[in-house]
């Protein structure tokens, strides 16, 4: 059983046609399952408690566009990185006061983030937004709904995901990406602390899929640029 927050395209989202969890992560896991003897089943859950759920053995692994961080390593174990991304800013179209992430701390701008993510950290530390102006959401979809309604001024989240949301028909006329990625982060799959059997299996499979170009192929399929 693999935990995931399926509001995070292109890595994981619910396909409106089939109601199945689809995306880069499920595809990659399916490729890995061919190499090691597992039957992965994705289960959707909320991100802010995802590591607690893994530590309390609700899941065998978490694959949910998770950045490897030292804080999270205290709670769970991570595989080798399988993709690198950076945080990006998205703002309302026509807001010419936000030209890069450095402008977020000015003008009392309200910045939406998803609770418990590296986007929250990046907004607070790298971009220096005051804590009171950082608005935390349970999922990034709610943040986009608020941004479109002009309830907040910007969103900070993983680059490929904000790029995906920004390209959606409901949002492409209202919001736009601002500047380039301003952090570098690696995604890994999280497993329960001490579960070396699963960890070694995942790492071996990831190494092979990196070697044979399968990961690069999936990145092209989902338009994920580093």
């Amino acid at each position, binding site marked *: 059983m693999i935990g995931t927050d399926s509001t995070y395209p292109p890595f994981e989202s619910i396909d409106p046609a089939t109601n199945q969890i689809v995306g880069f992560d499920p595809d990659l896991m399916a490729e890995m399952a061919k190499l090691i003897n597992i039957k992965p089943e994705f289960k959707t859950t909320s991100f*802010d*408690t995802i*590591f*607690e759920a893994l530590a309390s053995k609700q899941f065998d692994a978490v694959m949910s566009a998770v950045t490897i961080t030292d*804080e999270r390593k*205290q*709670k769970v174990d991570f595989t080798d990185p399988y993709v690198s991304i950076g945080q990006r800013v998205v703002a309302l179209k026509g807001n010419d006061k936000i030209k890069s992430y450095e402008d977020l701390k000015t003008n009392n701008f*309200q910045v*939406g983030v998803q*609770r*418990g993510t590296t986007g929250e950290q990046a907004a607070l530390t790298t971009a220096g937004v005051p804590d009171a102006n950082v*608005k*935390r*959401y*349970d999922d990034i979809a*709610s943040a986009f*709904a*608020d941004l479109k*309604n*002009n*309830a*907040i001024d910007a969103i900070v989240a993983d680059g490929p995901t904000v790029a995906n949301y920004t390209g959606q028909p409901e949002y492409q006329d209202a919001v736009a990406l601002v500047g380039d990625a301003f952090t570098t982060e690696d995604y890994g799959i999280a497993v329960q602390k001490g579960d070396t059997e699963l960890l070694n299996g995942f790492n071996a499979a990831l190494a092979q899929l990196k070697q044979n170009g399968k990961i690069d192929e999936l990145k092209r399929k989902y338009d994920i640029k580093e």
Partner: protein
Amino acid sequence: MSTGTGDLVPISPRRFGTLSRFPAWLLILLLIGVFVLYSMLSSERYSATLRFLLLGVQLTVVVAVVSYAIALVLGLIIALGRVSRNPLLQNAATLYVEFMRGVPLIVILLYAQFVVIPGLSNSLDELLGTRFLWQRNAAIAGTVGLALGYAAYLAEVYRAGIESIERGQMEAGRSLGMSYRQTMRYIILPQALRRVLPPLGNDFIAILKDTSLLTVISVPELTYYAKQEASRTFENFRTYNTAAFLYLTMTLLLSLGVRYIERRSSGGRR
């Protein structure tokens, strides 16, 4: 009283003396509360969590009080519509109650923040050239959502109270030459309100707890801070203990207040 048989001795209500009236549950809760508070304050990390969560208490109380006050007034108006003999008012009030009571509060709140308030605020701003931007403060949508939802619950409480007053009183009032409105205002409502004070008080406690739902639209109330603390420290046990402690402190104080009002209002009649 004296039937002459002499073998039925009624049990005196004073049998347990004053002991039976002693609120043991309150003493136990107080002792637990003092103990928990003491252990929180003596642990550095607990008191850090407590200080952080306290940041959300003020907004929790403000939202609860304001939305309850609106719901009290709106609920009474709807209840008067519900018992009205005017079919238009009666139908409109019933429609409101059935709709609001049938939709979960959390859905009402999502509607308020993502649909109603932005739509309303944007069209007002367009029409009047103002810059209200009500959607910027999610506490507004939260307060409105809670108030509209609870107005339906409270309307039913009021209606139960009004309908519990004997029909004859309305007839008596009318035959004395009072209008429907006067009879309602001076005879029915004062008695009905006294009867529904306990359930009204219960709904205040309920609305205070339901402010925690506002976290889904990112209103920085107590639960919002609790989730933030839990996600940054990974200390769920400590964090939610503290949140539960703070909610219990508020609801127990309210509960005592409700009991006091209840006792006072029924004082002259028992």
